[in-house]
């Protein structure tokens, strides 16, 4: 039978309800068919959503931010590393062994034979010496991690030297605690770069800086394939890697700003891992069987800085009172739940000599008594520069409400991160609410900034956090300096404990919380290593 299309019949048929329904059904069905099965991520690729807009360079001599440090930790090798589960244990990386001279001034490293860079070039003492000197010569932001040992562009040729093809000798200026120097070498600034590759791209004597900012010259388990700022990083497994081959072929780090978007992608299986979820989003994922949550205390601490140029904040009783006017517990249990833990000393838990005591809690009566003692029972007005981002924003609101209970009127001045920081660095704030992450695993990293201020004048050469808050502390500076030179570990730990106890009581810093890094991952992701710092988050054991 032949079918003849009759428009009239068609028109009539359309009028019937059943036919209409049929059409609707077919239409909806076709929508489902168009979209073939939602693809999950490939088996050999780890896909994560991560806020990476802070990355401005991938040159290890310039990296000092969290996300870029993590990237470098997986793409570059360092001479030595620390055990992420037991920080005091330092294990060999590119260096097989090392020793310290009796006078504590000379360190000798034996470099592993048989390591090749991703480029195929052989790694030798030349590359190590070049990499460390390069950090000093380029003098970018992380240079202080090495230059604090007395290296200068003028003396590096004598202080950091090659003994033979697989031996490196380094001479420091003082007999520091050995762990201090070794920890500094475990940071990103200690990464070993491929001298041949870097120098092939040198331009006008820039030591390859212009190229390596976005390029790659390492020997780590993964090699950099692509980096597009504020967009994406793609790492591929490095076939030349000297250690156990990484389990996954590729790691994709996609810049996704919002927590809601990250959560959505994770729930749908379009990513394997979300790195920047808020406490709210984490909570709603708790019941999801496809997703598990991994946590690790990180070195970052949240604190308030009270400017000593302010006539109220410079009164010791006022500083003390403010420490009793913060609802630490309340915040920890509400919007910081699982994201931060109570901590009140400048050394984060996990560091040598970290002080775990938390003497302050919300105590309005005590605060009022203290304020009355200095005739401020009616309170005063003070402003706080606050960057418009979580969790700092919520903290500010909580602090505002508890300050008010003692009559202190806190004006919150919101701003973008760089804007509030600009003001803080110029000492033009009253109170600054912020966070601070250590740069290496040694206690000196935070003592250096919270408890040292060699010169409090406006045009000082060295401007640590103590300087930013105009806190003049010659005596405490001396104590911090002494702690760096103590070579007995137990004694040194005790010195830091004492320093923190004093600091906790008198300083214009109100340390409130220690950060916890939380990673939400699909249930099939295994062995994503979270270390105590971002430069010890490792991908190479990860499977899925």
């Amino acid at each position, binding site marked *: 039978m032949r079918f003849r299309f009759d428009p009239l019949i068609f028109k009539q048929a359309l009028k019937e309800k059943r036919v209409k329904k049929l059409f609707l059904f077919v239409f909806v069905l076709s*929508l*489902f068919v168009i*979209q073939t099965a*939602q*693809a999950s*991520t*490939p088996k050999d*690729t780890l*896909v994560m*959503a991560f806020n990476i*807009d802070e990355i*401005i*360079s991938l040159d290890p001599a310039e990296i*000092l*931010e969290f996300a870029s440090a993590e990237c470098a930790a997986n793409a570059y090798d360092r001479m030595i590393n620390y055990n992420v589960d037991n920080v005091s244990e330092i294990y060999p990386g590119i260096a097989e062994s090392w020793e310290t001279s009796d006078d504590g001034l000379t360190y000798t490293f034996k470099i592993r034979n048989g390591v090749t860079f991703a480029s195929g070039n052989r790694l030798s003492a030349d590359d190590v010496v070049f990499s460390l000197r390069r950090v000093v010569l380029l*003098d*970018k*932001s*992380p*240079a*202080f991690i090495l230059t604090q040992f007395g290296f200068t562009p003028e003396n590096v040729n004598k202080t950091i030297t090659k003994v033979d093809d697989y031996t490196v000798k380094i001479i420091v200026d003082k007999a520091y605690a050995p762990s201090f120097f070794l920890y500094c070498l475990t940071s990103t600034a200690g990464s070993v770069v491929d001298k041949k590759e870097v120098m092939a791209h040198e331009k006008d004597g820039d030591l390859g800086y212009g190229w390596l*900012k*976005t390029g790659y010259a390492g020997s780590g388990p993964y090699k950099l*394939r*692509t980096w*597009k*700022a*504020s*967009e*994406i990083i*793609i790492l591929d497994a490095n076939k030349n890697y000297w250690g156990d081959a990484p389990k996954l072929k590729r790691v*994709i780090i*996609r*810049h*996704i*700003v*919002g927590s*809601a*978007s990250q959560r*959505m*992608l994770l*729930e*749908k299986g*379009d*990513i394997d891992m979300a790195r920047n979820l808020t406490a709210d989003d984490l909570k709603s994922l708790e019941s999801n069987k496809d997703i598990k949550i991994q946590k690790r205390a990180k070195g970052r601490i949240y604190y308030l800085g009270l400017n000593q140029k302010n006539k109220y904040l410079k009164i010791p009783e006022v500083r003390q009172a403010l420490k009793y006017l913060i609802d630490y517990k309340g915040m920890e249990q509400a919007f910081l739940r699982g994201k931060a833990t109570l901590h009140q000393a400048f050394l984060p838990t996990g560091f040598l000599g970290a002080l775990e005591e938390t003497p302050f809690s919300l105590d309005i009566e005590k605060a009022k008594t203290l304020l009355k003692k200095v005739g401020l029972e009616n309170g005063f007005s003070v402003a706080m520069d606050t960057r418009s981002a979580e969790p700092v924003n919520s903290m500010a609101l909580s602090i505002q409400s508890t300050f008010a209970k003692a009559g202190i009127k806190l004006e919150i001045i919101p*701003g*973008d*991160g*760089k*804007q509030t*920081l*600009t*003001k803080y*660095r110029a000492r033009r704030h009253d109170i600054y609410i912020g966070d601070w992450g250590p*740069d290496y695993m040694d206690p000196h990293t935070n003592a250096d900034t919270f408890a040292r201020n060699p010169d409090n004048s406006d045009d*000082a*050469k*060295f*401007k640590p956090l103590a300087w930013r808050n105009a806190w003049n502390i010659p005596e405490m500076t001396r104590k911090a300096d002494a702690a760096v030179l103590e070579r007995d570990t137990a004694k040194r730990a005790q010195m830091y404990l004492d320093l923190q106890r004093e600091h906790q009581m008198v300083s214009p810093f109100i340390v409130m919380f220690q950060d916890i890094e939380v990673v939400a991952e699909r249930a099939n992701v295994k062995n994503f290593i979270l270390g105590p710092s971002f430069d010890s988050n490792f991908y190479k054991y990860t499977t899925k």
Partner: protein
Amino acid sequence: MSFRPELPTRTRLIKTLKQTVRILVMLATTFLGLLVITFLIGRVVPIDPVLAVVGDKASPQVYENARIAMGLNLPLWKQFLIYIGNVVTGDFGTSVLTANPVIDDILRVFPATFELAVTATVIGIVLGIPLGILSAVKQGSFWDHVIRVIGLFGHSLPIFWLGLMGLMFFYVRLDLLPGPGRVDIFYEGIVTPVTGFLMIDSIVAGEWEIFRNAVYHLILPASLLGYYSMAYLLRMTRSFMIEQLGQEYILTARVKGVKEWKVIWGHALGNCAIPLITVIALSFGTLLEGSVLTETVFAWPGLGLYLTNSLLNADMNAVLGCTIVVGAIFLGVNLFSDFLYKVVDPRAR
């Protein structure tokens, strides 16, 4: 047919020349004004541009070196002159944040915005104008009310909210459309950018799967922006049409027995064409600037996101570069709509 007496060829040539010079001078002054203002804004914002380069922890020495390298120690007028000098020779400087030449960055992010803007504008025109006409013709009817409510929503709902709802519904619940991004994340970085337009590049590379995926990813954000553009166009079309339909020539046409569809689509719409072109051009221009909120919600690496990020980091080379691009877009769109006038309207010739 022209009723004007023909001018001698030479006089006409001089006239065209004069007009061209006038346009060029106008362009130059507009750009200069734009640059001066943006430059000054960039210097008065309370953000330290050196901070974006060296970070919070750099030593004062490192900080000072970077400041000098960026030329920030020079007097303001000198900085500006140097900048203008560079721009004239085609050098827009290097972005602090991405370490790339600004021009490369813009060429990289602009296609993403362009793809969105074009699709959204097409959706806006195809739906907005007919709906606007329908609403004007059936003024006061049930359909008019429905359409006006649609228009009102498009005017008042925040776009990020609608974007998140759209994702929640079509991506999370129904599984019909993909999530944020230009393609699924694991497809990213596979196609080497030739033109920057993912649709074209994926075809060039023969990656049909990626092309298909990219089209799917475009649907939601483009429909969303298209909806807003539609809402705007339909309101404008409606009011233009109502005005035209009340004119006497429409009455005359109807009395003469011209078919109703011809009255509406030919006579009335024809006379709305000129203001409509302006409206479309402006809406397209706005879309080309990049929609910051949509680009954030959909993790769409376009111009809006780039510009905002640069601004918040006081990355002035990037901001100025984007300003020039946006300025050029608007001037271009305006010139183009002027040109279209002449095509559509005999009086403008």
